């Protein structure tokens, strides 16, 4: 019983896949911007023990990191309406991405902030910087630079994890794949193509992060000596 592959039957729906991939990327981009921002804010609270926000941040991080994304998503989409907060599947998906990435990037950025040498902070203090000025001008950029690869990996993980959003009918890439294979029953071909698209997006995100890291975070041409 030989199965006959028929990729054409899936490629017919190519525009759906591309649209889905576009949605996935949008979701990831929006999630990254707000998630990393949230992560930075929580990281300061935790690293510098700003009460009571450090406790709130700790609780938030633990709650999110130790429960599955899907459950968080369901809670936002199906649960919050009971409390009177109704949002579309897009808003729910974005919110879930943001709080998820926010929790992980809190931990990552915190590690970077804590790796800041004491001397850097003391130099700032002795120049009469305020705590916030020290963070903003002295700690932040080198910390981000240190953890940038880890952050980009986390964004890729979250991008791949966003597949789960298809369960609340967010029409991203996995939604498109499942939609197509429910029409043509070509699950294997559809998933194979989808996998390739995910992989390409992951490579692309890594590249974008590298470029962003080089020109926005480091802000200098990376010749050999600048590695340190």
């Amino acid at each position, binding site marked *: 019983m030989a199965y006959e592959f028929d990729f054409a039957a899936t490629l017919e729906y190519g525009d759906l896949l591309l649209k889905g991939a576009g949605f996935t990327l949008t979701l990831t981009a929006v999630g990254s911007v707000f998630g990393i921002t949230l992560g930075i804010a929580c990281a300061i609270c935790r690293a510098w023990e700003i009460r009571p926000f450090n406790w709130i941040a700790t609780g938030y991080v633990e709650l999110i990191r130790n429960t599955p994304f899907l459950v968080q998503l369901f809670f936002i989409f199906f649960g919050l309406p009971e409390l009177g907060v109704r949002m579309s599947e897009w808003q729910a998906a974005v919110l879930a991405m943001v709080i998820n990435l926010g929790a992980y990037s809190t931990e990552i950025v915190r590690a970077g902030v804590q790796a800041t*040498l004491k001397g850097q902070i*003391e130099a700032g*203090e*002795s120049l*009469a*910087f*305020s705590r916030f*000025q020290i963070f903003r*001008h*002295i700690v932040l950029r080198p910390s981000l630079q240190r953890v940038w690869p880890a952050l980009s990996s986390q964004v890729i993980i979250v991008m791949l994890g966003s597949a789960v959003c298809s369960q609340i009918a967010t029409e991203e890439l996995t939604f498109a794949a499942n939609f197509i294979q429910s029409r043509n029953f070509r699950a294997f071909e559809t998933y194979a193509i989808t996998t390739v698209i995910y992989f390409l997006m992951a490579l692309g995100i890594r590249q974008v992060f590298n470029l962003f890291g080089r020109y926005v975070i480091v802000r200098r041409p990376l010749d050999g000596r600048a590695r340190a």
Partner: protein
Amino acid sequence: MSLVSINEIHKHFGDLHVLKGITMDVREGDVVTIIGRSGSGKSTLLRTINGLEGIDDGAIHVDGTELVAGQKDLRALRLKVGMVFQQFNLFPHLKAGENVMLALKVVKGISKAEAREMAMAAMTKVGLAEKFDAYPDQLSGGQQQRVAIARALAMSPKVLLCDEVTSALDPELVNEVLNVVRQLADEGMTLIMVTHEMRFARDVSDKLVFMHEGRVHESGDPKHLFVNPGTPELSAFIQSVS
């Protein structure tokens, strides 16, 4: 009246009694050198003067205002006191010139153009005008330390604290930094420095302070003390480092 006056200060780290009642006066234009064994409390003393370490007892006055134990807002004080560290502590993500400009802009709120000019003046003073746009990791240790001095100077402090500013340098780079410090001293800057460069201490400073086990064990005119140490501890110390 003295610019910095330190009165019977005490400092503990947990159980460790690091400063056991230090009293010291520094007048405007003085160059004071603090020497002593590792662990005798030299750095700790220096760091209390700009509030990097709080004190447990006693009082410190800088330029007339008291530094109160446990005080939160030390900004006014720190504007009067500059500090240079052993490890330079330049901001690695900023160019040399930007290192010098940053506090001018952020803390003093000076416009970018004006800050640039002031930074350039400070860089020129330490002989590094042409390295304005180099990143710290493109500079030698001696150059980095001179940038650190320029960064402190640009804020026009009343007194400059220097903690072993040449200890992390290769021997042939030591002099370029000491020359800058010497020049500052000649120009009348008030300096309090910890150093292991005995010859420099002898030649440049007005007053030598020998710390031993958290106390000022001996102090006075360096030219006199180096020849006639008053205690066996100072005598042993001078012998061990020269």
